């Protein structure tokens, strides 16, 4: 069940939310729409869902043009950032909703809900109300609810945005596993690059209503299409025209040809890695990253003068 977005544009008054956006989502894939707030990613997702209408362009789901179709008839599953739980219904009734309104027999509904409760690991909570669940549980319920009607495509709008860090990480792993099991075509919107890289096979980076690059995570990291993508997908140093990743900034104690002088302002312990916050005498700030072992072997400390040089760099054509 592929999704095909062709030349979608959308404006809210003077604000251009989407500018001639096109995207192909192959059947069974998991694609992330990654970008900062205001980049248009949520708007695009909602237009795919039919919750909003694009000004121009078409949307096709499973090779069928659904641009003029109501969201009810598109066969989508939608998961909201703030869960949109039916607060007056139990967990069971929430998940069963899609089937209930399609008038499926009660036994069938009960069975399906039980299956889904197991899938999302909420067994035993069927009779609770959403207000009695944690955020993570509510979102899993939201997912189960969306999956209950066997949607052709699954659309997730910043699904883990309202949860705290640890739960977010757990659910990311869990979502990936779920996808590997069900193979439902999925599009996830997120502003968290770590999340996108971890969960999706393909990432579409968006900015100011345009898609900057569509590629797998490695390609995005290694061969970013432009400055924006490079900076959004990971930390980056700017040395003149060149862009250097902190890992690719070599730190030595002695000057050596093309090295530049810098002073260590701070060492930040990131567990396995150490980040060095450096400053040059013209005030320019740099960041280098290495393993703790390496930092210790060089006996680095704050206030120390060191010499840096990029081992790899990227430049972009003007």
């Amino acid at each position, binding site marked *: 069940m592929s999704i095909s977005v062709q030349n979608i544009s959308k404006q809210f008054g003077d604000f251009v939310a989407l500018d001639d956006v096109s995207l192909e989502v192959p059947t069974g894939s998991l694609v992330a729409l990654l970008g900062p707030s205001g980049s248009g990613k949520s708007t695009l997702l909602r237009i795919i*869902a039919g*919750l909003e209408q694009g000004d121009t362009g078409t949307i096709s789901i499973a090779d069928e043009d659904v641009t003029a179709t*109501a*969201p*009810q*008839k598109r066969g*989508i*599953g*939608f998961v*909201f950032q*703030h869960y*949109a*739980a*039916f*607060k*007056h219904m139990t967990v069971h009734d929430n998940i069963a*909703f*899609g089937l209930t*309104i*399609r008038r499926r027999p009660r036994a069938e509904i009960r069975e399906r809900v039980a299956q889904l409760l197991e899938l999302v690991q909420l067994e035993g909570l069927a009779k609770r*109300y959403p*207000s*009695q669940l944690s955020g993570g549980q509510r979102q899993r319920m*939201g997912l189960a*609810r*969306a999956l*209950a*009607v066997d949607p052709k495509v699954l659309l997730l709008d910043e699904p883990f945005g309202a949860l705290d860090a640890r739960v977010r990480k757990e659910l990311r792993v869990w979502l990936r596993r779920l996808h590997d099991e069900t193979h439902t075509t999925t599009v996830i919107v997120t502003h968290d690059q770590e999340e996108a890289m971890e969960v999706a096979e393909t990432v579409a980076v968006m900015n100011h209503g345009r898609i900057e690059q569509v590629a797998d995570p490695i390609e995005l990291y290694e061969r970013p299409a432009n400055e924006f993508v490079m900076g959004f997908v990971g930390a980056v140093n700017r040395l003149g025209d060149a862009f250097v990743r902190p890992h690719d900034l070599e730190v030595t104690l002695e000057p050596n040809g093309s090295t530049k002088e810098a002073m260590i302002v701070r060492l930040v312990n990131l567990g396995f890695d150490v980040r060095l916050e450096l400053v040059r005498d013209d005030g320019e700030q740099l960041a280098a990253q290495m393993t703790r072992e390496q930092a210790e072997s060089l006996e680095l400390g704050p206030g120390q003068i060191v010499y840096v040089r990029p081992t790899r760099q990227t430049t972009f054509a003007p």
Partner: protein
Amino acid sequence: MALPIAALAWRSTQKGGANFWDVISSPEAVAALKLTLAMAALAALTNAVLGTVTAWVLVRDDFRGKSILNAVIDLPFALPTIVAGLVLLALYGIKTPLKVDAGGVHFKADITFTRWAIFMALLFVTLPFVIRTVQPVLHELDREMEEAAASLGAGSFTTFRRIVLPNILPGILSGLTMAFARACGEVGSVVLITGNLPFKTEVASVFVLQRSASDPIGAAAVSVVLLTISFAVLLVIGGLRRWATRHERA
């Protein structure tokens, strides 16, 4: 300071203990009370339905003059009841311009001395209640729930029935009960327009009014019935408040 009045007056209405039951069960009193309850219920229910629709339009719809409409709805709250009665009389009274007298059709929208007058007057004074209790609830309603329902395949009517209605029901009910209480006690707007014909258009409050000087004990008896209704209504509203928040306290 008002406390003594409420408490003492209440006790003092029980002065004519034995007389009480006689008055209550007198045919005229019974008729008045029955009429009051029936009309109040009818008006309250009508305004519950129409009020919900109005609240919906005010919250979800947008058109020029909406804010004026919103303000106009409070008119029955601000207008003296006796004026309300006269206002209705102007259009639906003896000299109503709404009449057809041609082609074998004789129709005159004159409701004086009829039960319609009571109904219309009560509709007028209870108009704002349900609207004002439903508006904030509707406003607060999480629109995403409705979007979720749509994404799961629910059409607009289904969404309204299964998602919106259950959530605004407490609001509707509390407005309904307040409207009912108000309608039971209403006197100013009905006293002129209905003619207060015993057994036909005399409501309980007018019964009390007319006997307040001549037969205070009798009037008191019926008052106590009205008082009981008021207390019952307050209890119901309190109960509704707790029921409405049960999902949050669960």
